[in-house]
């Protein structure tokens, strides 16, 4: 156990002792301080040495995935609903943060929602210098179909007819990468952003290796 875990364990024990004392002193149950559960979570994460991305996986699992696996009667499944602005923002932020370390120190990734309709969204990732890094943005003035048709003509790349049947469609155009994503919340969780970043890194590995192999020696 390292020093960080030891100090987290001591703090956890302190918090629990404090709560027990409070219970013994007051016969009438007091409402719990709302900050305590999140403080307990934070200390547990520190005890196990979890990083930001590990925490995102745990929290998505506990808050969204497990409740959706066995939903209560009459409760809508949260993973099926359309992601709201905050979900999309969390996704964009997690994607940029997870993807940026795969590039040199001077590089960063900007995430912009270029277009969307009821079913689909077109996300544009731009590889930029770190000084040009921007927070997640949304452009609501464009339709997905029209934007994709324009891209297809511009790049002379045939596009699949039905994106529902073609998962993980990605289109590289210079320093931009376009991704088509269904507008369902399960595709916009932070854990989905981490998975997308990993999948993209794997593809870039292959592209990098193939590029190097085909270079004249």
């Amino acid at each position, binding site marked *: 156990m390292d020093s960080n875990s030891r100090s987290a364990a001591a703090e956890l024990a302190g918090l629990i002792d404090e709560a027990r004392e409070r219970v013994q002193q007051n016969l009438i149950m007091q409402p719990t301080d709302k900050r305590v559960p999140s403080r307990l979570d934070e200390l547990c994460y520190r005890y196990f040495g979890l990083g*930001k*991305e590990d925490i995102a996986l745990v929290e998505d699992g506990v808050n969204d995935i497990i409740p959706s696996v066995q939903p209560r009667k009459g409760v809508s499944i949260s993973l099926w609903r359309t992601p709201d602005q905050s979900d999309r923002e969390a996704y964009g932020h997690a994607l940029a943060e997870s993807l940026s*370390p*795969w590039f040199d120190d001077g590089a960063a990734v900007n995430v912009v929602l270029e277009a969307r309709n009821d079913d689909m969204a077109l996300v544009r990732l731009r590889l930029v210098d770190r000084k040009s890094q921007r927070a997640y943005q949304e452009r609501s003035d464009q339709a997905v179909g029209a934007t994709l048709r324009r891209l297809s003509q511009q790049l002379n790349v045939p596009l699949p007819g039905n994106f529902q049947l073609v998962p*993980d469609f*990605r*289109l590289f155009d210079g*320093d931009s990468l376009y991704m088509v994503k269904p507008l369902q919340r399960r595709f916009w969780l932070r854990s989905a952003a981490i998975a997308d970043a990993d999948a993209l890194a794997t593809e870039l*590995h292959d592209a990098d290796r193939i590029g190097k192999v085909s270079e004249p020696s």
Partner: protein
Amino acid sequence: MTEGDASAWTARFRTLDERFLERVVALWPRCTAVLPKNPVEDMITENLVAVVGKDAQARRLFHHLEYHYEPFGHTPRGLAFSKGKTDMAVLLDQERDRYLVYECKRLNVPGKDGIRSYATEYVRCGVRRFVTEKYAADLPIGCMLGYVLDGNTSTARVKVLCGARGTKEQRRPRRQASPRTIHRIRAKVLKRPHTNPAANRSNSDTHSSHSSSLSDFGRRKLAECRQGDRMAWAGARSVAERQRFLWR
């Protein structure tokens, strides 16, 4: 499904081994802080695996970091067998045959008689295992990790490069050995059973002539060898090659 040209992205892309090595370098002080003076190779690797496995940033790069990973080979009939233990392997998922292997070796090891480079071992017992595809067979990359114990990485790098090219680097003349050292070396040489020097000078290349030129020690050693080793010995043409074979 991916379309388009990703060259602008790959130009700035850092590969998995680059990122993993970066974490190893960052965590190295934490690893060495608990190690004794002149630790053996396995002890360093064990501690490195333990430290890297607990690092949240490093953990994002792999599914599992395995110490003493044994890749499998397959006979033409499909029988799986272990190809030996690699020091460390980065497994990307549950697929057993897709891994990034690290063979670790110590370099510039301080000892009683000064610093020994171990560059030859680095090449012969490390790099060669990748060249012969004992490790990382059918994979695009395999990695060596050198633990430079005296911290002089530039000398270690030169010696490893020379070892790989099979040349001796230009080095300063050695200082005169002390009489005690000379005495110790002589004592070692005298204790060591040796082949007949006259026979060693002969350059014949048939198996029988090699056997006849052996001392008792050589014959005993050869009797202990497996069939494959015997054939390798029989193919050894130079005196140095035969001596290397007997003394390995």
